[in-house]
């Protein structure tokens, strides 16, 4: 291979690498914000969950807080940072995989409905206070009273080892 050919090959490899890198969503810069708090209705009889327990709740494998109180899952609409954190850290899924997961979950008769989508913080807090058993994921800078913030793996938002950020 002569020098010209080498240059051509390097040029095309560079173009290919740049195209793949820039096209990949994983290359997109994700803004790092505040911790995402796990928040429940204040009457929910729970104060502390491990990350794997939070995952079980979000995967629909745990559907009841106790035999009288079903879990009501609230998730922010696509493009909200809280949703990005939940998908990345807890589900470990892309947006497409998350949608497919819930279609399959209902199709397997393992759940009757997907998580309820909330479009704003206001709506999220209204549902959290109105629906017994509700659980939601809130940017810790936007906390409001009247709800309960759960410890995750023994940590609260702001702790160095808090896992949801």
């Amino acid at each position, binding site marked *: 291979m002569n020098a010209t050919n080498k240059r051509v090959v390097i040029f095309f490899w560079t173009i290919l690498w740049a195209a793949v890198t820039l096209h990949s969503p994983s290359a997109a810069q994700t803004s790092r914000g505040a911790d995402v708090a796990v928040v429940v209705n204040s009457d929910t009889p729970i104060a502390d969950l491990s990350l794997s327990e939070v995952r079980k709740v979000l995967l629909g494998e*745990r559907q009841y807080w*106790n035999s009288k109180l079903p879990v009501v899952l609230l998730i922010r*609409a696509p493009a909200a940072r809280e949703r990005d954190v939940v998908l990345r850290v807890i589900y470990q899924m892309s947006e497409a995989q998350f949608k497919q997961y819930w279609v399959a979950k209902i199709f397997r008769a393992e759940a009757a409905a997907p998580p309820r989508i909330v479009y704003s913080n206001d709506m999220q807090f209204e549902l959290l206070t109105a629906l017994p058993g509700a659980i939601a994921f809130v940017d810790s800078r936007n906390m409001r009273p009247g709800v309960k913030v759960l410890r995750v793996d023994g940590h609260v938002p*702001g702790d160095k080892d808090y896992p949801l950020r």
Partner: protein
Amino acid sequence: MHRQLAVLVMMIFGANAAWAQSPRPLDQAEQIRILLERVQQLEKRVAELETKTPAAPVPAAEVSANVPAPQKPETAEAAPAPGPMHQHEPTESQATTRQLEARYPSLQIRGFGDVNFSTTDQRGATSGFNLGQLDLHLASALSHKVTYFGELTFNAQPTGYTVEVERSIIRYDYNDFFKLSFGRYHTPIGYWNTAFHHGAWLQTTISRPDMVRIGGTFIPVHFVGLLAEGNIPSGGAGLSYNVGVGNGRGSIISRPGDAGDNNNNRAWVANLYSRPTKLYGLQMGVSVYRDKITLPVVSPAGNEFREWISAAHIVWTKENPEFLAEFANVNHKNILTNAVTNNQAYYVQVGYRLPWLEKTLKPYYRFEHTHTPFSEQVFTNQDLVGSIVGLRYDITNYASFKSEYRNTKRLPTDPRVNGAFFQTDFTF
């Protein structure tokens, strides 16, 4: 053959062109993100204004011009004590809240469909298109403890369409540890039969493995009866169970006796599986199934058999990589002669979601093997050694295009069959 390939190539290019013309999803996502951030800022501003003690009114222009500066992050413990914040009058958002509160019954319908093209070098076989199953899935919460699930399929036949009730289940949830249901199920033996059901879009490949083929007989795909299921308190082991009693195989052994059992013996099934919390994505399980089969044709050797199925599976459900492996042994014992046969089947499937092109491509490979001995009296011969290699391309979040090459061999005396299979499948 050349003309068919040309048509397929045109279809692929057509799909690519359509994809290329669609707007960039990342741009839309960015726009939505900006709008959501703006909504959040405005909400924060409203909250601030509502919590302020009555003060001189702020000119509207000033309010709309002000964008609050980012607040210092607060920890949960630093959150203010409950107070009279956000005491809205009945508003639009409260109406939305009411809309999101559960209502019963709440019927949801989802459909699945697929269109296929196949061509093989098997003598006597014809190539061409065929319409796959049109599948309707119904889910309806009847109360917060009771739910109905149904699945209907419309199947193309040479003389028209047949409609089949694939599943019809009413389930009462006591809690996560005990859920009791009645109806027609996919028998919880192994993994595939309860993971993918009829919608081809849900599974990576075009078709099911032969051992769990719809209409096949190796394992009883459907089951009519009752089923108890739930989680088992087991810490990190993440154990769950299914235990059921039902009619078992009918006179046509691929069917479950929907209209009534054909003997006075009930079948039972038990399935135990684990999803370890520290290995998110892993599932391992074992299943057993017991039944008495009464064949409609009485022969001198008898027509009644005891059936004992034992199965095991291990799967890694993430897509980088995806790994599915399942094994089943079907034991038949002739009640009259005590003659015993064992039939085995297994498959191993691997797939990998490629990181490029927005993770739309997923190549996969599956090897499957089925063995039935010559002395087997319940099954007709089902021997199979086969490999498939394919590529799944997700056109959108809810539709995909799959292409497969298959190499299969049935009996030792049969020739190997090579084939190309294409499918587009979707949910709606």
